[in-house]
């Protein structure tokens, strides 16, 4: 399984975060990789519409995440606009952002893990 995340919105535009970033499942601790796989399945990711969530009227600075998952020749992309309240989708986003953050932290030179 290959997962890519791209982030926009929030308090500023950060080109580095808006670039798609791959989450390498093999580099994660096995339990975390398994939890992530499980979240993708529980969310029925491949059946989701291309966009999930609508911004509230008058809302500003909301974040949006674009997730792409590839598995066994399938590939699907979904854009999530915050707030994402559905628990399984919320869990999926949390798992992916957590993994991506851990990976980022590990890659940064001189930063304690």
């Amino acid at each position: 399984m290959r997962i890519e995340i791209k982030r926009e919105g929030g308090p500023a535009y950060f080109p580095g975060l808006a670039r798609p970033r791959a989450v390498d499942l093999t580099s994660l601790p096995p339990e975390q990789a398994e939890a992530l796989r499980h979240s993708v399945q529980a969310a029925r990711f491949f059946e989701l519409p291309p966009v999930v969530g609508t911004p509230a009227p008058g809302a500003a600075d909301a974040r949006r995440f674009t997730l792409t998952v590839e598995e066994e020749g399938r590939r699907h992309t979904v854009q999530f606009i915050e707030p994402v309240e559905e628990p399984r989708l919320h869990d999926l986003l949390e798992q992916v952002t957590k993994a991506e953050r851990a990976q980022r932290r590990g890659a940064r030179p001189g930063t304690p893990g």
Partner: protein
Amino acid sequence: MFHPTRHRHSIHCILPPYLARSIAQNGSSEQRERALRTLSTDSTFRALRLAGSRTTPSTLVTRPRAMMVESALHRTIYDLRNSEAFPGTPVRFEGQAATEDIAVTEAYDGLGDTFNFFWEIFGRNSIDGDGMPLQAFVHYGKNYDNAFWDGRRMVFGDGDGDLFNRFTICPDIIAHELAHGVTEDEGPLWYFRQAGALNESMSDVFGSLVRQMKLQQKADAADWLIGKGLFTGNVEGVALRSMKNPGTAFDDDVLGKDPQPGHMKDYVRTWEDNGGVHINSGIPNRAFYLVASQLGGYAWERAGRIWYDAIRDSHIKPDMGFLDFARITMMSAMRLYGAGEEADAVRDAWEQVGIRVPKPGIGIPSFVGAVTRPSTQAGRAPRA
């Protein structure tokens, strides 16, 4: 929170509360004179609004009690305890003593700073101009790296600790979020392309002014940064944005480089970020900085007033572009101060960022069809 009628605004157009108080409290002839001068400008402004508004004249004259308006600061801070389930637990009401929680204290103080700024400087009674209670929700989510305005309340995350500190740390970010509420109430300006970048810029302008007033800084002493102190020590950068030098606030391995242009020649056309609302806001941001630094003194006194009057102008359209807005700031400057250094400063500032405002003719220029607008395409950002 879109209100189809605008009659609430007439409250403050009849007599701004700060003015009533000023006349009552201060006996000096100079202050009285200044107050009366403001009153006469506001009368002109009222007449203009009336001419272009959908409000019937009777609405205006039947609300004299507005002269009695007292400010009403009603803050409530809620603790979400790292969940995303509203409303959480109220932990501090208006007038209560500070708690141990720094995020609660910062949110409480930031709401107060913002409220006081709009009240003291513009006579605006809260976000909606009508005493709206202010609610802030802190400790939203886990490692949540954002602060946002959801259309009626402010929400703050604790930051992930890797890139971002807690989002209550900057008074200008708190004011930025609340100012989105003001813009929504006055404009609104769609959160898309140039209108969205103007919306973002209004929030940065008022965010910066709230911080400058808190620090009692004049235009040349202010750093004109937005979100200074938000990044952790891991990030190569000083702030989210620089109004003075857009594009120079950060340059980091993870976050990338600050993408903001400070001139139309570098305008970024993109589908990302709602059409670049946090990117191209650098252009009107710099225009405001240039006006303020040209005029000198406290930026909220003249530059801030011109911008505030502009956002309240009845010519504001939800899909307006930079040029339309530039013209409105010119009209505001003329209306408030006549043809003088203020109007010159406004025209020069826009010119320096690549937006040429034509010399105003006599009367109110018509905006319909008079301006080329690259951003009139309606609707939300298409899917990336």
